[in-house]
């Protein structure tokens, strides 16, 4: 679906990201993790076509991403930005419906087909309860869910999300990742999620890329990437695995450095 070859990005002559090569296939949920400033969001914007790589090439469905018009690209890739622009008094249902924008070239109004897609998406994401409220009346978490609903409504085979669970509570974090993974499984979408939540990535992503200082440190299934041995040098925090009951695997926990020091 989206493939990056030797992609590099920076300003002027200084490259702070890459070279990165990566292929995101349909039906796979990718997680991009790494410390602050590792270049996760920049990588996501490159994949979304919002930034143009200085070196290397990004192909979407086999074609160079630059060959698509904005609308054509949007029909293939949906993007959910990090901090939803708050304080807009647009109705939540309008907002979700506006996700259908790339499918219309002319005309002022959405079709009834668009309306039913929006309605179905809001039901599936349980955002229909605030359909009549405006975005600035919603809490941060509710707004985030509406943004994800709008991206689903866009109907693009690839979805790129920048920290989609940042302001969600535990229940809605799980629910959101469940929705994203379902979209990958049942609708055969390519999903890329930038996240700080290592355990959610461990639980829900099929593939994980760990970035540090703009370089991919480890790429692969979460069980092999998200281990204390790989993560500890990157995050500079001692990490351990705790086994959790009723969980398919272990839970990553940060160890208290001072406590372990005093013990030693």
């Amino acid at each position, binding site marked *: 679906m989206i493939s990056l070859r030797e992609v590099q990005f920076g300003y002027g002559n200084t490259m702070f990201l890459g070279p990165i090569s990566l292929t995101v296939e349909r039906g796979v949920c990718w997680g991009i993790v790494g410390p602050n400033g590792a270049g996760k969001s920049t990588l996501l914007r490159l994949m*979304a076509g919002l930034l143009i790589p200085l070196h290397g090439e990004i192909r979407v469905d086999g074609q160079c991403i630059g060959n698509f018009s904005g609308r054509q690209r949007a029909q293939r890739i949906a993007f959910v930005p990090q901090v939803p622009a708050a304080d807009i008094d647009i*109705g939540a249902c*309008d907002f979700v419906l506006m996700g259908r*924008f790339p499918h219309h070239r002319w005309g002022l109004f959405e079709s009834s087909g668009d309306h039913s897609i*929006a309605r179905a998406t809001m*039901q599936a994401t349980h955002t229909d309860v605030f359909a*009549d409220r405006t975005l600035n009346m919603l809490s941060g978490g509710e707004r985030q869910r509406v943004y994800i609903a709008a991206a689903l409504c866009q109907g693009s085979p690839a979805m790129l999300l920048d920290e989609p669970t940042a302001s969600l509570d535990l229940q809605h974090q799980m629910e959101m990742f469940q929705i994203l993974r379902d979209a990958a499984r049942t609708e055969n979408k390519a999903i890329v999620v930038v996240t700080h939540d290592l355990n959610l990535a461990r639980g829900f992503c099929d593939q994980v890329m760990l970035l540090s200082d703009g370089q991919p440190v480890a790429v692969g299934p979460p069980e092999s990437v998200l281990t204390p041995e790989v993560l500890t040098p990157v995050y500079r925090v001692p990490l351990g695995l705790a086994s959790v009951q009723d969980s398919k695997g272990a839970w990553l926990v940060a160890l208290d450095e001072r406590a372990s020091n005093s013990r030693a």
Partner: protein
Amino acid sequence: MSEFTRILTPQRFLASMALAIGCVAMLLLVSPGVGTESGSVGWWDAWRAELGISISPDELRGRPIIDVDNDGAVSPSEAAAFAKLARTIGFGQRFARSLLALQVGVTLGICGAAFQILFRNPLATPYTLGIASGGSLGALIAIRLGWAVAFAGISTVAIFAFGGGLMVVGAVFVFARGTRRLTSNELLLAGVTLGLFCSAMMMFVTAVSSERETFFMVRWMMGSLDPIRTIEGATLLPLMLPAWVALVILSRALNQYRLGDELAASRGVNVATLQAICVLVCTLATAAVVAHCGPIGFVGLIVPHIVSLAFGTDCRLLLPLSGLIGGAFLIVCDWASQLTMRLAGWVSGRQLGSATLPIGVVTAIVGVPVFLVLLRARKTRTVS
């Protein structure tokens, strides 16, 4: 699941537009009957005269100015003369003036709404970038140089005002070059600063002018719909029409733009091109308005806020309705500007003539209180 009550459907769009167009049509319908010009010409008389429906002499009995030969009866020739007068006053002057007010109001309203969206700033109007002050300076220079000649139906003052407005906006963009975003403070600051510079230069030009020139300058800066020859109204249209059409066509893209640059870009909106087109068409249209009528304030500021409170902020509705309501607002303000002096004359018992209050005074008198009330309302509800 609750219904999508907020979503703009074609039915709601058409209903709202029909309402606004209906209001404007009503105003235009009665406009031949409202004005200061002497003569008891009612809108109904003017329409009948315009449409060639004869006015029977019996009907005109008792009207003061009809009875030319003072014989107490209205002859058919007197009725014909009245019809001619009704046409001249009703359509040649009053209707043409209202039509100009409509065009100017539509432009100020729609461009004001567009700038508030483009700059994501509820106080932005096309004047913010210095069109008004640049245009005023240009007009003042033309008056000072005494080049009040007409050129192809347009006065030099208008040409200078147009050029001055465009030059200041161009300079603002040159100074703020390098700022990638339209919403940047640099752009707004450059606009305000250059506007202040133009104000200083206006004072300089005024200081070195004669009394008579100063009078014209002050009158010009008050804003006026006085140049009512339809030929001038017609020459405005080619400069204003692109803004009306482009903004309505681009209203869906502007809806996306309101959500933020990144989200809009990810959905296929070319943000930079959208901004460039909108600023260009609005600048041209507003410069044309300033050139012909002087800086008429508050229409572009308050009308979009009122419309968004009443009809929501969907650009597809907000932009055309701001235009139509702006047009209606300016027609009514123009009537008020003509009738207040008449009213004042009637109250004071003195003949104040047919002088009209400057339109800028009326829009400010109406606009400032409304805007302050809205400002308070904004504490509880965010607009734009």
